[in-house]
């Protein structure tokens, strides 16, 4: 392990020279953790996530991470993460599909407990019949909890979102967990090019006293003597306290947006803004959409792409602006319910232009050809198909 010098987040994330590596998504998670000055990582096996936490375990063995253990199961892992973060540590963990749902009670309580942490979510089918493939319906379970949810398209996003995730999560005006979701296998087990700053640098350590809610470490004057547990005084106090606390959680969630602009270049990426037909997609579906947009452009078709990087906070204004002249909006997704299509429809005035799909589920590949078909349909183009399917 090289000696790592602490550098400012702005330098590490935005300015430091980068070198190109050909690595898997799992490796990209680990490379981000390596540079994030992480105190503790807690692992529990589930495919396809396990490889990421194996690699983080190697980082612990090498000394990049100070403590690491294999937990009893996900609820225990996510609870222990909450304990470690309350104790002032910077923590990382990751899970997939059924593991995410098993840990969900703990995870959705993190925002209310004001737990700044980064959680990697490598998507996997959650409902029966069981499968290990990368359906991403589980992301919809994360959208109403106050968590910041970023959705990575490829290995580069995994690296950038994870490293920036630690910085954003610990901002005083955010102080919330950041989920970095990406599709299992398609990203985690596939290799892609990732531009990374040198591994001899790391983020400054977490400063748990720079916080809206202090750590529980007996090292600060008590904010109040907890003689009076007000939540229990009456139902009215209970309503009120929960309400104001959650209002603040969601305000904090919206405040993450400015940091997403600063560190990740904004919550959306728009390709060919003057197009007539737009593909709106997040995660892997954005990669498929990007490919389709390129083919369409080669054929001279007026097609654009809106990649949504941040699902929470959702870029309402940005999506509305990008689609203001759109005649049709195609929303390719890796799940059966179409959670992204619903989000998109909810923020534009003319939701009738949104085409629900194409969707694949069960973790199936989303062939670019399916998106092309929707593009041709939207533009009234007829194509003859010869392929045997």
């Amino acid at each position: 392990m090289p000696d790592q010098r602490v550098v400012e987040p702005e330098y590490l994330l935005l300015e430091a020279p980068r070198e190109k590596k050909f690595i898997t998504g799992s490796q990209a998670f680990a490379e981000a953790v390596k540079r994030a000055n992480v105190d503790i990582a807690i692992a529990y096996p589930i495919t396809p996530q396990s490889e990421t936490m194996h690699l983080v375990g190697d980082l612990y063995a090498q000394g990049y991470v100070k403590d690491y253990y294999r937990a009893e199961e996900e609820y225990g892992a996510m609870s222990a993460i909450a304990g470690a973060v309350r104790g002032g540590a910077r923590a990382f963990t990751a899970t997939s599909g059924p593991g995410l749902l098993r840990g969900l009670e703990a995870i959705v309580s993190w925002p209310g407990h004001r737990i700044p942490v980064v959680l990697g979510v490598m998507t996997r089918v959650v409902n029966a019949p069981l499968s290990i493939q990368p359906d991403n319906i589980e992301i919809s379970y994360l959208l109403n909890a106050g968590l910041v949810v970023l959705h990575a398209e490829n290995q580069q996003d995994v690296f950038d979102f994870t490293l920036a995730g630690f910085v954003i999560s610990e901002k005083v005006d955010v102080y919330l967990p950041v989920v970095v979701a990406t599709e299992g296998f398609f990203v985690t087990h596939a290799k892609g090019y990732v531009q990374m700053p040198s591994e001899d640098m790391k983020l400054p350590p977490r400063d748990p006293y720079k916080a809206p809610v202090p750590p529980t470490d007996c090292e600060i004057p008590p904010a109040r003597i907890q003689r009076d547990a007000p939540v229990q005084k009456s139902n009215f106090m209970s309503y009120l306290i929960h309400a104001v606390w959650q209002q603040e959680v969601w305000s904090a969630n919206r405040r993450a947006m400015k940091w997403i602009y600063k560190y990740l270049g904004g919550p959306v990426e728009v390709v060919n803004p003057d197009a007539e037909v737009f593909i709106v997609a997040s995660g892997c579906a954005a990669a498929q959409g990007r490919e389709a947009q390129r083919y369409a452009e080669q054929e001279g078709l007026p097609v654009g792409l809106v990649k949504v990087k941040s699902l929470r906070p959702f870029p309402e204004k940005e999506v509305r602006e990008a689609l203001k002249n759109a005649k049709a909006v195609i929303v390719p997704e890796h799940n059966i319910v179409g959670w992204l299509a619903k989000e998109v429809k909810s923020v534009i005035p003319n939701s009738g232009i949104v085409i629900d799909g194409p969707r694949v589920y069960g973790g199936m590949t989303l062939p670019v050809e399916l998106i092309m078909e929707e593009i041709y349909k939207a533009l009234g183009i007829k194509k003859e198909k010869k392929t045997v399917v």
Partner: protein
Amino acid sequence: MKRYNIRIAGVGGQGVVTSAHILGNAMSAAGKYATLVPFFGSEKRMAPVEAYVRVSDQPIYEVGEVVYPNVIMIYHPQVITHGKSYTMPFYTGLKENGLILINSDADIIPDEDKKVLEDLNARIYMIPATQIARDIAGTELATNMAMVGLFFGITRLVGLEHIEKALYERFLGGTFVASGGTTALDSAIEKKFKKKQELLAKNMEVIKYTMKLAEENGWVEEEEKKVAT
């Protein structure tokens, strides 16, 4: 833009996933682009295994299994004769003007399928890759190398030095993330060859042989014929 979307079908134990990594790493070594998706299920000896590789001179965005390939590589005759593939028939989804590379010492494509492939204007090249591996490397485990050599022999996408670098990375580098099964197989190969260096040299010989085979048979793609999507 040159783009090959490759579907490799073989059976467990043939090094299908390993060769996908080598194809990708060789492209990377040549400064070009590749993405790969090994199919991860429970891999068992002689059960169907598929891997997918996309190679191009331009960045590649899309991910996932190649449903509509323009190159199909068949590592074992049973893929065709016993239906050991995830999709039936083995050429499902093949695009027009595609390439099919088959490891077989006999013509195993049924006539009715030949007719469909002709309509799609597919080029079919067959070599006895297992026999070549046995003759040159002394092990069937180099079958995948024969197929890699054939692919690069036809497409000429990368030079020998790039393939060699890819092999080096795969067998001697520390960056490859292997499944338990692959690691066990590696150690079996190692025992057979004693030294990894020797293994690498044998593999290179197989690759050189099938590359030359492509040249001698006049299978090398001319520039304008190259598959473009």
